[in-house]
């Protein structure tokens, strides 16, 4: 509601100053952030570059998860809390597959043996996670289509807890690491440097591969949503479910399809996460899911390129905060800063960077 968003004090302030104070405060915060970054770049350029590269890599993993949030929110206006846990299950599935005898994967194998197998793992994980997500939708969300909006939100939390406990029951409470079933290091991704720079800084092939997987996925998704018939059905369902049904679109199937796609993105993210960070724990999905959700809100929820942009920004904010030295709060506060960003975004620009203004966003 545009009308009730303006509180009394705000109106009074605006009348007396002749300006709206909210965008000004937001602008001041952004300027402060940029000044802080610039001073850090000037003081420690190598650290800054390293942080930037790590941030982009982390951000592209978040981006794959954030795309799933944004897809589901776009079509159902539901925060799928279970999405982060689907991602976590994806990581678990990938680690289990890689460690299993069926694939016989070893880090030392030649590229033409290794890569087809890794891609097979990726595809199986994507399909598995897609099915998990679609099942969650079928059980926990579809029966509640007509219910008040908070009800599916609560079942989403329930689904998240259930998925977490499934992982806890099958994999235990400790980190599941990639090399647990293998001898030697778990460096499946090539660790060689693409380039190095001063202060021990380097950019590895592994980081580039992570980025190289995210970009085509985003373009494939954009193509799917904007160019195909199924994508048209998705957009129609997102706009008006009843009208879409009258036009002959099978609404339930379209929603299931959306969850399938979102889940397979989470599966892809899980596989990449497992390969790059080499360990997953049952409760990590929820935290990373919240970070990815923040990214989706930052970019403008419902907007696909926005989700990736937001995720890159969140990844950068995290690593800048963790590694920069000049007046950085440090890794103790990373989580608080991410949620602080979420709250600030919702206060100052609820529609996100690339999104459109919605009634819910104030």
């Amino acid at each position, binding site marked *: 509601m545009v009308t009730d968003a303006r509180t009394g004090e705000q109106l009074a302030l605006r009348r007396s100053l002749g300006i709206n104070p909210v965008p000004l405060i937001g602008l001041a915060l952004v300027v402060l952030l940029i000044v802080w970054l610039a001073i850090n770049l000037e003081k420690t350029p190598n650290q800054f570059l390293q942080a930037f590269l790590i941030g982009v890599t982390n951000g592209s993993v978040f981006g794959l998860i954030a795309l799933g949030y944004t897809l589901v929110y776009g079509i159902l206006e539901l925060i799928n809390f279970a999405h982060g846990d689907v991602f976590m299950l994806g990581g678990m599935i990938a680690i289990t597959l890689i460690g299993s005898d069926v694939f016989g994967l070893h880090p030392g194998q030649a590229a033409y043996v290794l890569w087809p197998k890794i891609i097979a793992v990726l595809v199986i994980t994507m399909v598995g996670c897609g099915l998990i997500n679609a099942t969650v939708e079928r059980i*926990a969300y579809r029966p*509640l289509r007509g*219910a008040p909006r908070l009800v599916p*939100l*609560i079942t989403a939390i329930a689904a998240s807890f259930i998925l977490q406990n499934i992982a806890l029951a099958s994999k235990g409470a400790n980190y599941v690491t990639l090399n647990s079933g293998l001898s030697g290091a778990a460096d499946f991704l090539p660790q060689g440097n693409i380039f190095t720079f001063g202060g021990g800084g380097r950019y590895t092939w592994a980081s580039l591969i992570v980025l190289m997987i995210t970009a085509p996925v985003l373009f494939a998704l954009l193509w799917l949503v904007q160019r195909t018939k199924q994508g048209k059905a998705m957009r129609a369902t997102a706009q008006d479910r009843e009208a879409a049904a009258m036009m002959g679109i099978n609404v339930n199937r379209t929603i299931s399809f959306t969850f399938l796609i979102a889940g397979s993105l989470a599966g892809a993210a899980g596989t990449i996460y497992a390969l790059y960070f080499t360990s997953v724990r049952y409760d990590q999905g929820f935290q990373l899911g919240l970070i990815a959700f923040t990214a989706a809100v930052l970019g403008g929820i419902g907007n696909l390129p926005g989700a990736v942009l937001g995720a890159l920004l969140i990844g950068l904010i995290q690593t800048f905060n963790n590694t920069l030295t000049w007046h950085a*709060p440090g890794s103790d506060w990373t989580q608080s800063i991410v949620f602080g960003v979420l709250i600030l975004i919702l206060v100052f620009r609820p529609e996100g960077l690339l999104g459109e203004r919605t009634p819910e966003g104030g």
Partner: protein
Amino acid sequence: MSEPLYPGARLRDTLRDSWRIWRHRWAILGAFGLTEERFHAWPLPAQRAFIAACVGAVLLVIVGPFSGVDLSALITFAIFVALYVPSWKRLGRAGRWVIPGAFLALAATFPYYTDTMFTIPVLGAFPDTHTGVVMLIFVMMGVGLNVVVGYAGLLDLGYVAFYAIGAYTAATLASTQFAGQNAQGGPTLSFIFGGIDVDKSLGGIHISVWLLLVVAGLFTAVLGMIIGLPTLRLRGDYLAIVTLGFGEILPQVARKGDNLFNTGVNVTNGPQGVTSMDAIGFGSTLHKYLGLPENFESAANSDRLFFWTAILLVLFTIFCSLRLRDSRLGRAWIAIREDETAAAAMGVPLMRTKTLAYAIGAFFGGVAGAYFAEVTTGANPDSFSFNFSVFVLVMVILGGMGNVWGVLVGAAFLAYLDQAGLANTGAWLNNHLGIAIDVPKYEFGIYGVILLLVMLFRPHGLIPEARHRLEFEQGVADEPLYDATTT
């Protein structure tokens, strides 16, 4: 026959139908000469006596083989019959107070008889007094969250933040936390205002815990307002996610607050938390002249004193909650919950009403947190997680959003499960099925299943608020012209 609109109703009805004995109860009873018409022609107490007798018979069959029938079970059943069968409410003004009075008396004397009570089937022994204290604190939190979620319809996923603020406010202001250290190793700050049995040489702030319960509540309410003001203009799920964010930030502040912004200022004592909080009590003067207990912690009947204090706090919470619900403010909350736009159009000031709901919910969360800190003699950052917020939310939803009595039952039951019931159930299952599953490990998975099942099959909770039940059974206003979603 109109089909109920709320989800899962069809499956629920199928389940109910498949319970053949219930479906054919009148046919079976009719065979013995008791038809439905005849039964309803009986006087009301007789009808109830018959139902009570049936309940008794069923319980005898179920409970008997598990734990045997002892005197306490029979007395419990007798009390149930005495309260249920006569029409107390028809006995005028005094009669209306019989049932609440009896419940209150039973609750207040709980520490005296709990040791001699029968064993509950599967769930295990009756809760002891200390478990009772924890249950009451959770009841208080549940009723407080109910103001936000149940009355005003604002989903708060960060209730733990208020609880943490309350706990830390009380714990830091009644301990040696702010003692500081001078060159001789002695305290630099020593302020005592009603603290009981304080070692003056250690320094620190020692304010009376009674006062701190109020102070913590008020401070939390103010912080709740400050948190609420920028976020309450968002609606629905956005608000939920922002409260979740605050619920994640505050515990981190608590955990890292021993060196705020690298300035060396220690507010929360970091991961160790604040320990050795002062005792609660009435002090030596009141003890001498009025005979009130001097110090609850060192008293011989320590658990009971904590229990009765908790009962008083819960009574206060429930009283406020009920009176608020029936006030002008409460009606405004319900109006906002039902339809925000319509409420605004009718002149309900949205921001003020929502902020007050938030502040009042925060107040009770803060008081509960402060008292919990007192019971556990300190505040520890590890106990403040998202799971905690969800735990309290499950209490509200399971009991019945908006209904204080439902929330009371839901909170007491879940707190009991958390404290002892789940472990007992696990032991029972493992014993009887010959398996070895660590049931308490999956506590939150179990709550997830409860949450899912309640939402699918009984979205208005076990003891629903009348208005909510109607809403779910007859559907909310917006009926589509063409129901596309059920095809």
